[in-house]
């Protein structure tokens, strides 16, 4: 019986259904280096046993569809941003093996700053940089790595240093930084070189498994179609023309990075510490007594400057203090004052899927345009809290409960029109039971810096309580005031 010595990697899907179900060829041009590199990476993933924890960040470029091939976690990143995405994954998913796979337009053109900073931070990620000296996907424009004299669509007479600058040596740039642990340039010009590329790819991934730090492999790779030659000619051209400009070989292979990845984690400042430094939340409020009657999908809307966004934050902070889950999503125009603004707040016992509130069950409107804009979006059975000082008409809907409160007038009498929204919020708290007055009173001093404003808002709460007592019968469901 013959035994299989080399076969397709398990980390590649059995079929690639992008073009048609059951299709099993790549979308790459015949002889393209991307496919060869994919095979090498997939084999390394198999052999290291990391398929179920690998996250592959694919770029913009010909390899944009890498997620159709790799049977691992996949994210397709904005042009040049894969190292930033990879860094974010690194810091939130400790066990993930994160690959940033990028072309030369992606990494060395639009994304140059992303890669330099990710490398400089020594993120424990692995970068595979496919240098084919051209923009493949868009039809053969000059890349930062296009060599002098090379004809491309945008350098039809050949790249001229005086006009387009010199080809950029990415491996050398990364090697000039302190943090990376492994930098190597390899070539796909022939089978022996492909085997060297294979070793470098495996090493760069193993480094990450061993939590050593940042590794980058630059792979000189043929693009026969845009170089306008056959696959076999392209490999020869690569050897004779690219390799002299971009010498292959290892530039760095350190036994360990300048900082231990564990220290890197320890160096991170906790959320608590950040709050301390900012001088907020010294006193943590945590009451946790509320049981919601139903999930709250709350929207507050008004003019910019009416405290719409900050009242939303106040409500969300109270919800957090109650031990509930919450989201806050602001929406406002370009103008700081006088434009329209609204904020969506969800409050729930469960994890919240989306921060968007399209159909609120509680709406608070600070002015007439907001009432006009959002009245119809409220769900039947919901409630609308109207600042009747500035929205002088009645709510027209009959399937919702309306509270018309002259909040701006009351606030003005209290000594500051800014506290109108807190009067409304107090009534909302009492009607909905989503947050308690006690929590509101504890959170306000933490949220507002100026002492006189704290006092004003504390008085606003009292006025809100009084308004509720006088205007809302015991069972709040019967109200139409």
């Amino acid at each position, binding site marked *: 019986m013959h035994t299989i010595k080399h076969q397709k990697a398990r980390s590649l899907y059995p079929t690639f259904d992008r073009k048609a179900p059951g299709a099993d060829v790549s979308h790459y041009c015949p002889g393209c280096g991307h496919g060869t590199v994919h095979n090498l990476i997939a084999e390394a993933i198999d052999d290291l046993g990391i398929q179920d924890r690998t996250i592959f960040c694919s770029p913009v470029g010909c390899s944009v569809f890498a997620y159709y091939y790799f049977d691992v976690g996949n994210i397709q990143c904005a042009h040049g941003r894969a190292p930033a995405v990879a860094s974010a994954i690194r810091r939130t998913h400790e066990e993930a093996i994160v690959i940033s796979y990028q072309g030369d337009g992606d990494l060395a053109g639009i994304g140059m700053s992303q890669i330099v900073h990710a490398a400089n931070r020594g993120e424990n990620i692995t970068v595979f940089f496919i240098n084919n000296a051209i923009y493949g996907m868009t039809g053969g424009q000059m890349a930062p790595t296009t060599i002098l004299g090379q004809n491309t669509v945008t350098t039809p007479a050949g790249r001229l240093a005086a006009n387009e600058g010199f080809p950029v040596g990415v491996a050398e740039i990364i090697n000039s930084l302190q943090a990376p642990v492994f930098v190597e340039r390899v070539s796909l010009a022939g089978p022996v070189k492909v085997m060297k590329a294979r070793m470098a790819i495996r090493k760069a991934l193993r480094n990450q498994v061993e939590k050593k730090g940042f590794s980058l492999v630059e792979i000189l790779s043929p693009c026969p179609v845009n170089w306008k030659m056959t696959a*076999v000619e392209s490999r020869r051209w690569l050897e004779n023309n690219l390799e002299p400009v971009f010498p292959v070989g290892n530039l760095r292979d350190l036994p360990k990075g300048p900082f231990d990845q564990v220290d890197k984690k320890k160096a991170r400042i906790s959320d608590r510490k950040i709050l301390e430094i900012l001088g907020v939340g010294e006193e943590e409020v945590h009451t946790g007594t509320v049981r919601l009657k139903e999930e709250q999908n709350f929207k507050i809307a008004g003019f910019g400057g009416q405290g719409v966004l900050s009242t939303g934050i106040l409500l969300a902070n109270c919800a957090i203090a109650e031990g509930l889950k919450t989201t806050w999503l602001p929406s406002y125009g370009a103008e700081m004052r006088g434009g329209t603004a609204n904020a969506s707040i969800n409050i729930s016992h469960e994890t919240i899927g989306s921060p968007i509130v399209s159909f609120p069950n509680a709406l608070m409107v600070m002015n007439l345009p907001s009432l006009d804009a959002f009245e119809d979006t409220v769900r039947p059975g919901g409630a609308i809290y109207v600042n009747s000082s500035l929205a002088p008409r009645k709510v027209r809907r009959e399937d919702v409960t309306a509270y018309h409160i002259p909040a701006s007038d009351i606030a003005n009498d209290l000594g500051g029109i800014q506290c109108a929204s807190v009067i409304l919020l107090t009534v909302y708290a009492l009607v909905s039971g989503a947050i308690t007055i006690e929590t509101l009173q504890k959170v306000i001093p933490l949220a507002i810096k100026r002492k006189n404003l704290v006092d004003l808002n504390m008085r606003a709460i009292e006025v809100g309580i009084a308004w509720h007592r006088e205007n809302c019968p015991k069972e709040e469901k019967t109200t139409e005031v």
Partner: protein
Amino acid sequence: MGTEESNYSQINPKRCKGCAACVVACPHGCIEIGSEINQMGYQFARFAVRKCIACGMCFYSCPEFGAITVFKKPRKGA
């Protein structure tokens, strides 16, 4: 193909784009581009000469996925 007693590399005609990277990669000249055309319109490669040492050079050079599988001959007495 008469490969019972030797190593060989098997090329899946449906997955081959006829780029010939494997042809130039093989140190023993085992692979050639045939004259038949596959469903994608490419003249695909085929294993032709029984001198294969199962080195995998063709396999690692191929840009397609699973176009080449390399088989090792049975061990003597196995």
